[in-house]
């Protein structure tokens, strides 16, 4: 549920990028930051391990501006993808308004995608949230690797594996090149709008 402060007239929308380790969640945020930091004028906060993996989370806030008298602020988070950091993932999901599930298109990580989605389902359930009801966008990342001859999962297989029941908006992407990164982010923010509007009433 979006954080609305009627006194300070502030609205905060929390978006979490979820998915298997090394799937490109941080790369999504890095692309947004590197390309648009001159406009959003905020910093990407990242806590990484020595091996350059996300230890706690990445955090990229930005202001959308004053709308209908409210200062609208979007906060993008990633979770650590590695299985062992489940408590951190759960913590980051607290108060989430929308989720981008960043699936990895590489054939070798097919099972990891499914396990990670199952983990999202469980962690949301702990907050009494349903994966079927929360605004969700499926992003099938790393399509750029197809050109390098790496065995890939087709969007049809990914849809069947991950989105057959959820039927969430989905798109292929390349966080590395930026393909559909902004589109994904815009889509998830717009999907949270009905909830935000409901809270402002």
């Amino acid at each position: 549920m979006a954080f609305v402060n009627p006194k300070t007239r502030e609205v905060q929308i929390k978006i979490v990028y979820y998915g298997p380790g090394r799937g490109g969640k941080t790369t999504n945020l890095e692309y947004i930051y590197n390309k648009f930091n001159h406009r959003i004028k905020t910093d990407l906060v990242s806590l990484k391990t020595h091996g350059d993996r996300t230890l706690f989370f990445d955090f990229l806030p930005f202001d959308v501006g004053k709308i209908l008298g409210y200062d609208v602020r979007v906060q993008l988070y990633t979770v650590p993808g590695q299985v062992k950091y489940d408590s951190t993932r759960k913590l980051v999901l607290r108060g989430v308004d929308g989720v981008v599930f960043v699936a990895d298109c590489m054939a070798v990580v097919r099972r990891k995608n499914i396990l990670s989605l199952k983990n999202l389902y469980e962690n949301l359930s702990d907050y009494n949230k349903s994966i079927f009801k929360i605004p969700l966008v499926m992003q099938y990342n790393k399509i750029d690797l197809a050109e390098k001859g790496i065995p890939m999962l087709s969007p049809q297989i990914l849809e069947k594996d991950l989105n057959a029941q959820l039927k969430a908006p989905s798109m292929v992407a390349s966080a590395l090149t930026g393909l559909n990164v902004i589109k994904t982010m815009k889509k998830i923010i717009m999907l949270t709008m009905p909830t935000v509007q409901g809270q402002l009433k």
Partner: protein
Amino acid sequence: MDAKDDQTLSAEVGKRLDMLFEDEDTSGAGAAGQPPDRTAATGKRLLEAVKADILSVDWEITDAAITALIERLTALKQVCASDKIALILIQMLISLGRYIKVRKSKAHVQSMNIMKSVFAGLEKILAQPDLPQDAKMKILRVQVSRFHDFQTQVMPAAARRRAKAPAVVQRTAEPVSPELQLLLQNLAEELKVVIRDEFRRLKEEIRSWRNPHDGYATG
């Protein structure tokens, strides 16, 4: 907050996000205090978008992806209206897009390769506005020749199918005929443009032979 405000909030957030994350070419523009070249920036943005669309189509041929590609190419055509060579290449891409849209996964195996090759040529031409006309023509000739080779590969196959089973074609004429008609129509359009351009160039060349001093002040 009433229903009107609901729409306003959503619309306003969408608008702000578009403004905030509009992909624009900031390199050079404004650095010397000059206004940015909006046409060039738009062209570059469209070209990048077309590239992304081609990648999407290469990944999976869907109606949505192909339609987006054709719409984007049509927009790019308007931006490049003054560049005849770019226009021919864009028209070739549109034709290929229409062909792939009709044939989908049954499109010729070389379709995407030809599309990528034509796009590479277009990208080269648009990325280097200072490229000499000869170099541009060379790129165009290579791409047109590849495109024509592709057409000869595609069309006899369809014609062969039609010749082999005339009875079937008659009964199920629809799946084959519209595609061929579309392809022929597009080919005719492109050939007209190429021939007209070649004629114009030849006329200019002949004129310059006849009047070597044409265009110079004679005092």
